[in-house]
């Protein structure tokens, strides 16, 4: 019984983990069709912001929920203005440029902070479930992931900004002729994507610690999740996280964490062979 509860909780945590590392990418890739290979570095920067702020005496929650998204969001806007905006519609070039950016950020952070892991301890302590211990902070992350998806959904679905953003992504020329500054919309959308990544990276920092090269561990998984999700980005990413996270955790419990990760990757490859349009290419078509 206790074991069952723990497994279920672990599955939820794994899903939340995947969802968190993917949400920023879901916005940037899903909406803007920008293959942002520096996504992992956005997460890393969010983590660094939290750790540095917390070590300087800033309240951990303020650092995670406010500092991280603002810092990384601003960095995202700068990146968009300096590099990405010249490359819209050139998918492969964006991919290469953001790859360069990712190396550049990793290099800069390594030069500044050295190649060592830093961390903050996770808040909230732990709770006992029968004979097992579970970290309350990990469980909070599940709620945080759900809340983030809800906020992103509401933002893009029901606000004026969201409407303008979606319209611009669908037909930039038309939006332009209707008097919308598409440059501004692109920059803001990219900034929102980056801010979400920063927030997620900040939330994960107490669990994983931060290291300049940690982004590499995230970027492939995030891409796989978003692409497996398909056209309806938020719903797709959420359902792909649910599917892949469950498989990962179950395989981890049966065998080892390495088998779990391999299962996740193999499942994604098979999934894309069966549903080349991703999950929402076939199901949940009307979601957004």
């Amino acid at each position, binding site marked *: 019984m206790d074991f069952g509860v723990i497994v279920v909780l672990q599955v939820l945590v794994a899903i939340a983990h995947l969802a968190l590392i993917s949400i920023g990418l879901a916005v940037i890739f899903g909406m803007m069709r920008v293959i942002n290979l520096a996504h992992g570095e956005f997460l890393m920067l969010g983590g660094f912001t939290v750790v540095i702020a917390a070590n300087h005496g800033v309240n951990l929650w303020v650092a995670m929920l406010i500092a991280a998204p603002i810092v990384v969001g601003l960095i995202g806007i700068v990146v968009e203005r300096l590099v990405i905006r010249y490359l819209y519609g050139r998918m*492969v070039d964006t991919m290469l440029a953001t790859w360069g*950016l990712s190396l550049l950020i*990793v290099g800069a952070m390594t030069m500044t902070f050295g190649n060592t892991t830093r961390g903050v301890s996770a808040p909230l302590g732990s709770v006992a479930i029968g004979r097992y211990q579970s970290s309350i902070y990990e469980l909070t992350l599940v709620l945080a992931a759900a809340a983030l998806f809800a906020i992103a959904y509401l933002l893009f679905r029901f606000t004026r900004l969201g409407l303008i953003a979606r319209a611009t992504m669908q037909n930039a020329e038309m939006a332009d002729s209707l008097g919308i500054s598409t440059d501004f919309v692109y920059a803001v959308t990219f900034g929102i994507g980056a801010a979400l990544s920063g927030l997620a990276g900040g939330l994960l920092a107490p669990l994983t610690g931060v290291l300049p090269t940690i982004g590499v561990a995230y970027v492939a998984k995030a891409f796989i999740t978003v692409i497996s999700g398909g056209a309806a980005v938020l719903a797709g990413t959420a359902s792909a996280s649910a599917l892949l996270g469950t498989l990962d955790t179950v395989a981890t419990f049966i065998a080892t964490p390495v088998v779990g990760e391999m299962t996740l990757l193999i499942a994604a490859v098979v999934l894309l062979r069966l549903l080349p349009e991703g999950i929402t290419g076939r199901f949940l078509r009307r979601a957004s």
Partner: protein
Amino acid sequence: MRGSRAWVDGLTVLIAIAVILLVPQLLELYSVINATIYVSMAVLALSLALVWGFGGILCFGQAAFFGLGGYTYAIAAINFGDSNLPVLFAVALPACFAALLGYFVFWGRLNDVYLGVITLTVALILFKFFNATAGDAYKIGKAALGGFNGIPATPPLNLPWDKSVQLAPEQIWYVAATLLLLLYYVSRCLLSTHFGQVVVSIRENERRAELLGYDTRRYKLLIFTVGGAMAGVSGVLFANCVFVSPTMFSLSYNAQIIIWVMIGGLGTLSGPILGSVLLQMLTAELGTLQWLDPNFVLGAILVVFVLLIPRGLQPLIAALGERTFSGLAALGFRRRKWIKP
């Protein structure tokens, strides 16, 4: 007009042969081994130049075939005690793997991004797998896979007709550099055949090629397989100068190859070779500096290239060469029109 092209080619071959012969004479053993590593990686760059630059297939996981080639060679060589069959295996296995993966991908009609992500995923799966092979449970015959440490004692190549003579590092340099030159010309010949022309036409416009009656999937599969085999060769050469370890499959290797091809010049064969050698020399040079992170410089270079020189170095150099030549022609040489490769 054809004459001038052949003339340049002849000169290139002569220079290449001179370099091949001179490197072991002029450099110390350590530098010769380094040069061999560069050349083995140049073969890898050439393989992606073929697949991506001419086939239009953005394979983000080219290092998968490179690593498989290296591992196959190491495992087979340890078990057989000589290198004749292992080399063949090390080319055949990545080629078969590429064919299998290609079937999966091209018959699924996956395009750019999906193809990139799937190939990268496959490379990462292999990375995870070989990383997890520590311990006695993972032994193939006499060869322990060794997990994260890889297989440190990879036996070097031997003379095909005399198994007792193992090649010294200088001799491996000769083999590697000659192979690079050979594969470069093989690739050029391949591209000038009907098959090569169709492959390029598919890159230009897949739909049109299909409407002209070509089964584009088969052409893409074949060029992908050739690229896999060539990456296997590169893996064997690399295993001979370093040793095989899971990092051969890592994200950084996969990305490096793409950077080389991009900076050298996408859609050319000589560019990626040049790009790979230049960037490796640069990385090695930067690695000796304490205060500067090589990643930082590489990243900056890549961003600058994508934004300002998206066609890469080779077209730039070719244009420079053309200008020099026409300058010479103006000085009284017979004027010849330059034909772009």
